[in-house]
C-alpha cells in the first residue's frame, strides 16, 4: 500500500547563522503540545502534570524544565501551557503520547507545526532584540526562565529566556520567512 512516503520540510530549511556576537539557529526537533487546564479541575490538572512530567506548574509568564533539559513547561496563560519536548521529530505522535498519559485531566493539542522556533544567542542578542521586541528584557525583569507572548514586526511571537544571553523565539510557521527576515535585519542593523 504505502508506496509513498512523506518528507518533512523544516520551515526555515534548518537555518543557522553565526554572526560572531549573535548566533541564530532554527530548532527542528522539538514537539510542542499545548495543555489546557479544565475549568474547575485545575488542581487535578496540576497534579497530573506533576505525575506525568515531574514538573511543578510555573507561574504565568514563567517556565520550568526537567533536569535533563528534555522537557520544558511554559505557562502562557492562566489555563494554558506549552509542553516542549526536545529531540522529538514527530510532534503529533509526541502529543498523542502525552494526551494518553493525561487522559481527561488535561486537554492537549499538538502545536509543533504551528510554530517556527529559533534560538538567538550571543552577547549582542539583546541589542538586536531591542529593535523588534517590545518587552523589557532587562535580566531583573525578564530573568532566566521568563517568557512573554508579544508581537515583533507585526508577528505574534513567544520569547523565552533560556539563559542570560540565549533566547528562544517562536512565531507562526506560515510566516517563518518574514519572521527570520525581521530577526536578521535586526542583527544586521546593530552589528
Amino acid at each position, binding site marked *: 500500500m504505502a508506496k509513498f512516503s512523506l518528507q518533512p520540510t523544516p520551515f526555515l530549511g534548518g537555518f543557522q547563522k553565526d554572526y560572531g556576537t549573535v548566533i541564530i539557529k532554527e530548532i527542528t526537533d522539538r514537539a510542542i503540545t499545548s495543555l489546557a487546564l479544565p475549568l474547575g479541575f485545575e488542581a487535578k490538572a496540576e497534579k497530573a502534570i506533576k505525575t506525568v512530567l515531574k514538573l511543578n506548574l510555573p507561574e504565568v*509568564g514563567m517556565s520550568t524544565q526537567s533536569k535533563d533539559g528534555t522537557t520544558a513547561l511554559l505557562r502562557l496563560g*492562566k489555563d*494554558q501551557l506549552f509542553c516542549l519536548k526536545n529531540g522529538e521529530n514527530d510532534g503529533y505522535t509526541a502529543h498523542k503520547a502525552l494526551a494518553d498519559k493525561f487522559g481527561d485531566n488535561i486537554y492537549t493539542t499538538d502545536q509543533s507545526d504551528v510554530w517556527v522556533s529559533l534560538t538567538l544567542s550571543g552577547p549582542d542578542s539583546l541589542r538586536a532584540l531591542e529593535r523588534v521586541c*517590545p518587552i523589557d528584557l532587562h535580566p531583573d525583569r525578564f530573568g532566566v526562565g521568563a517568557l512573554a507572548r508579544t*508581537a515583533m514586526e507585526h508577528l*505574534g511571537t513567544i520569547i523565552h529566556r533560556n539563559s542570560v544571553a540565549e533566547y528562544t523565539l517562536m512565531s507562526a510557521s506560515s510566516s517563518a520567512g518574514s519572521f527570520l527576515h525581521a530577526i536578521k535585519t535586526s542583527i544586521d542593523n546593530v552589528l
Partner: protein
Amino acid sequence: MIIKHPLLGPRDAAEFVYLGDASMIDRPNPNAPDAKEQFYEYGYLRDNPAGEHKELWYHEQGDRSWLVVTRNTITHEVKYVQLARDVARAKGRDR
C-alpha cells in the same frame, strides 16, 4: 498607552484589541419578555462617559485573555485592570 495586565504586568496597548464598553458582558436573557428591547439597548446604546469607563480589551498578541480595564476617557489614566472572565462570573453569568 500601557495596560497593566493582572497576570503579565505592564504591556503596550498595541498588543491589545479594543471592543468597547464592558456592558457588552451583560448579554440579556433571550427569554425575557422584553428581550427585543433589551438586546437593542445592549447592542446599541452606550453611556460613553467622559471620565471613568469600564471597557473590554483583548490581549490578542499575548495570553488571549479579555480584560476589563477601568480607564479615564479624558486623561487615559488606567485605574485598574481585571480579567473579564472573573468580572463576568462575579456578575453572576450563569453558564
